[in-house]
């Protein structure tokens, strides 16, 4: 047996042993009164607060959305920043492979000429599919308050529609719709929208991301609706960044950073 294998087995056995040792101490699975779900005596339960009060605070029925975009909105902003940083890191790493930012020679569009029948079928089907996917993605972004979904999921689906274009015809066809300069801009604008909502709250003399004070700007009745609408705003910001960066990561990985040819 190779040396790393022995080491791996020892490490895995030790770690697994420690973890399993701890498992026996856990509250049972599915217990509604466990400390995570209810509370330990003497403190107020955070999760019960979310379930019982968050609709009053934000008027958003999907508790996950309201916790994600409002109570823990600061985390979500940095989640978006993580995506952006990953995109930037990938551009920086793969950019050195083939000079990614050299001006590309604009070739003719994908030619569905004779002889390549399978491509015509795939290309046409995907072309029909893309608008449906995009409309669904917009629905997911906009309807995140009432059903599962939100900026991140919708953004990934929107990016998937561009990836389908790239897969079915070629990368250039997708890059013509969302070019290198534009996806970078879109990503920055997304985070700026998110942080902009937060800073707007600071300008109105409250804490960062305290959407309630945006009521006079958003012309809503009551700070709760202001929170609800601002959440939609930041979700759109998240969707911008995620769409742009997810597509950009695919475009760079599939073309080794050259942004030509693709798969």
């Amino acid at each position, binding site marked *: 047996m190779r040396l790393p294998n022995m080491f791996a087995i020892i490490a895995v056995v030790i770690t697994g042993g420690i973890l399993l040792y701890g498992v026996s101490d856990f509250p049972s699975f599915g217990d509604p*009164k466990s400390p995570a779900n209810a509370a330990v005596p003497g403190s107020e339960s955070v999760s019960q607060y979310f379930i019982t009060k968050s609709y009053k605070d934000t008027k958003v029925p999907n508790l*996950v959305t309201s916790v994600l975009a409002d109570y823990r909105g600061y985390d979500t902003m940095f989640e978006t920043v993580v995506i952006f940083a990953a995109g930037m890191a990938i551009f920086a790493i793969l950019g050195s492979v083939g000079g990614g930012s050299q001006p590309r020679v604009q070739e003719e569009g994908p030619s569905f000429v004779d002889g390549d029948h399978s491509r015509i079928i795939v290309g046409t089907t995907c072309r029909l599919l893309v608008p449906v996917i995009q409309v669904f993605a917009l629905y997911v972004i906009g309807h995140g308050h009432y059903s599962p979904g939100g900026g991140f999921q919708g953004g990934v689906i929107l990016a998937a529609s561009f990836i389908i274009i790239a897969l079915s015809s070629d990368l250039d066809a997708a890059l013509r719709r969302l070019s290198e300069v534009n996806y970078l801009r879109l990503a920055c604008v997304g985070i700026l929208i998110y942080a902009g909502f937060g800073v707007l709250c600071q300008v109105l003399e409250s804490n960062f991301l305290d959407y309630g004070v945006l009521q006079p700007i958003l012309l809503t009745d009551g700070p709760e609706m202001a929170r609800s609408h601002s959440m939609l705003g930041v979700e759109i910001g998240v969707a911008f960044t995620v769409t742009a960066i997810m597509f950009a990561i695919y475009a760079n990985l599939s073309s080794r950073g050259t942004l030509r040819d693709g798969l």
Partner: protein
Amino acid sequence: MAEFFEQTLQPHFNFWIYVILMMIGLWALIAKNNLIKKLIGMSIFQTAIILFYVSLGVKEDATIPILDPYGQAEHAAAEAEGAETEGEKKRDSYIGKKSPDPDTMANPLPHVLMLTAIVVGVATLGVALSIAQMIFKEFGSLEEDEILEIVKGGSVDD
């Protein structure tokens, strides 16, 4: 055996599986030779942790953490009684007055945390894959032992 199953395994079954998955991931991370395999191991490792977190928020017989915003159930019931206007009134005042029972709804907080963790996972995977492509371009191989040999030999030109 049955007793062991009832008392030890069943209440913590998810937690046992999370440990097993995590150890599979960790083992692949250390022992696998191929870099892509290592990355698959890394992803499994991360999903195991997400499994742990989501298992925390599960409650027996609980529903998903989305409220019924328009009180559709009540609305339908009221409609069946023929009192539509009253049903609408009910819809407006739903939840505003009566807050839901926390035991009937899954804990939303671990879900929120894990959304972030999934995003972090895919971002890390993307960066790692791009580095793997760079390594393949530089060394012409994705096998760790071959790469280490090339590094030690210092024989391949740039």
